[in-house]
């Protein structure tokens, strides 16, 4: 059972709908929180989307929200959100899915969490993740494997797999994810929800347990693109506590959503965007392009040079920087890591500095290539992943070509590009594969132009209903 009919109705509301009703006093924050907690209690034992549920804190926050005068209610008033376990909340264990940090209790909220609270959000719990965000499956050795609500035998992806599963299963109206190589967009695609990786610098990393400093970015995960826009608006902006956060004005993300798709130019990368895909994924991509073109978007073939080493470069950086961050723990407490993360960290210790530098240099080359392409179009279109969610526990994936690849390498084909360039990317659900599992498309945009991606994604969602599909229970 997933709760009473009235409660199911509340958990089925989108973030913007729920906030609107709560601001208007038509639904109380306490009702939203109770419905959410009831649903988590009913469904999460089968999903392990949460590491910790903060019933007491959520109820107290809901009560406090009810005392806020109508005129002072924020855009996220009373809305239940979930936080990935690597984001600090005052007084709550922030383990980053690890045993190493299972006693770490931050004294204050991460900046992005504080901003969401200030906008009225109520945090209901901390979502499961790949240990230290260092992996793509959320097959967590300490807290259990998170499972995909569309098929519990499949992975929800990672590293923000708990956030993806929780949003898809209606266990919260939205969630925070973090994305170093793929970790917002991959679970968004595998779980049939929207996920935005903002430009590097758009959202403060203050209070977020690092994985790779030059790649890490936090972003919203919601059922709709519009809800992602609402969350981003609350999270984004310069923060003195994070020197890498940018002094770039935060635009209105909601107003442009309704401008439609007419006249927008979508770049399809020659011999790349639609090649080597699982059959069902390719069909979904072609159908999505037809929808975009049918709504007035212009499809343009664009060229991107030097894509070949992108996965190699991403992995080189994403193995060297974590090794530096974890160096002391790896020597003091090696047995407290899960096997896969420990091995990656040990391997990272053996990399040459020159390889790391070459990978950083390559980012400049790749970004120049994207800047050229994005001078001819408004967004570059790719799938988020070339295949649907593999079984829980899978470490390798067989591609359409028959080639078997390590799962991390396999999911990075399209995912690696935005982190390397620093540019924003949005994953939007666009159908289902032959196995009935969700498929996501990816839109990559100009640095700090999240607004255009959100406009395209929202325009697409006005013409399709993939985001309204609900996993079986």
């Amino acid at each position, binding site marked *: 059972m997933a709760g009473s009919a009235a409660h199911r109705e509340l958990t089925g509301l989108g973030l913007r709908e729920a906030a609107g009703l709560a601001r208007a006093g038509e639904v109380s924050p306490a009702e939203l929180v109770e419905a959410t907690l009831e649903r988590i209690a009913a469904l999460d034992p089968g999903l392990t989307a949460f590491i910790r549920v903060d019933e007491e804190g959520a109820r107290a926050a809901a009560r406090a929200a009810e005392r806020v005068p109508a005129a002072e209610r924020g855009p996220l008033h009373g809305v239940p959100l979930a936080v990935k376990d690597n984001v600090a909340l005052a007084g709550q264990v922030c383990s980053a899915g690890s045993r190493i940090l299972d006693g770490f209790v931050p004294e204050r909220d991460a900046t992005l969490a504080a901003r969401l609270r200030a906008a009225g959000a109520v945090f209901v719990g901390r979502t499961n993740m790949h240990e230290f965000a260092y992996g793509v499956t959320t097959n967590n050795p300490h807290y259990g494997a998170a499972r995909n609500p569309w098929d519990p035998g499949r992975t929800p992806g990672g590293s923000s797999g708990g956030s993806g599963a929780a949003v898809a299963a209606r266990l919260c109206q939205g969630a925070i994810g973090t994305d170093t190589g793929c970790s917002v967009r991959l679970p968004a695609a595998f779980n049939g929800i929207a996920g935005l990786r903002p430009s590097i610098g758009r959202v403060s990393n203050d209070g977020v347990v690092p994985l790779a400093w030059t790649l890490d970015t936090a972003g919203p995960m919601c059922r709709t693109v519009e809800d992602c826009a609402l969350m981003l608006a609350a999270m984004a902006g310069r923060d003195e506590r994070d020197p890498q956060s940018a002094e770039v004005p935060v635009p209105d993300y909601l107003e442009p959503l309704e401008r439609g798709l007419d006249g927008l130019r979508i770049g399809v990368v020659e011999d790349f965007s639609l090649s080597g895909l699982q059959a069902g994924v390719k069909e979904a991509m072609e159908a999505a392009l037809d929808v975009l073109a049918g709504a007035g978007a212009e499809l343009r073939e664009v060229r991107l040079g030097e894509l070949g080493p992108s996965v190699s470069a991403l992995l080189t950086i994403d193995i060297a920087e974590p090794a530096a961050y974890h160096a002391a723990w790896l020597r003091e407490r090696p047995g407290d890591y899960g096997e896969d993360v420990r091995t990656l960290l040990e391997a990272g210790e053996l990399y040459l500095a020159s390889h790391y530098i070459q990978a950083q240099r390559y980012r400049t080359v790749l970004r120049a290539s994207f800047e050229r392409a994005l001078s001819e179009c408004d967004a570059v279109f790719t799938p988020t992943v070339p295949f649907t969610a593999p079984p829980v526990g899978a470490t390798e994936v067989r591609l359409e070509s028959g080639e078997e690849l390590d799962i991390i390498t396999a999911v990075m084909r399209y995912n690696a590009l935005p982190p390397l360039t620093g*540019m924003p990317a949005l994953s939007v659900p666009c159908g289902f594969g032959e196995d009935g599992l969700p498929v996501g498309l990816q839109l990559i945009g100009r640095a700090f132009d999240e607004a255009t991606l959100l406009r395209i994604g929202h325009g697409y969602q006005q013409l399709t209903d993939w985001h309204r599909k609900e996993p079986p229970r």
Partner: protein
Amino acid sequence: MAAEIDDAQIVQLARLAGLELDRERRAAVLAQLSGLLAEAGAVNELMAGRREVGPGIRFDAREARDGG
């Protein structure tokens, strides 16, 4: 380098890094380096041939936006 590395090299690299790896750990690391990172040479090959004069590393998206 990754695809051709062997146990003896891992012993040396680990010693340089000050990391203690027993036989079992070395086997796991070797498998990792030979599998996941088999193509790690690709980026080195591309970038080693580029010897442009001037700034070489920019990973901050702010610079992309500002045209830096």
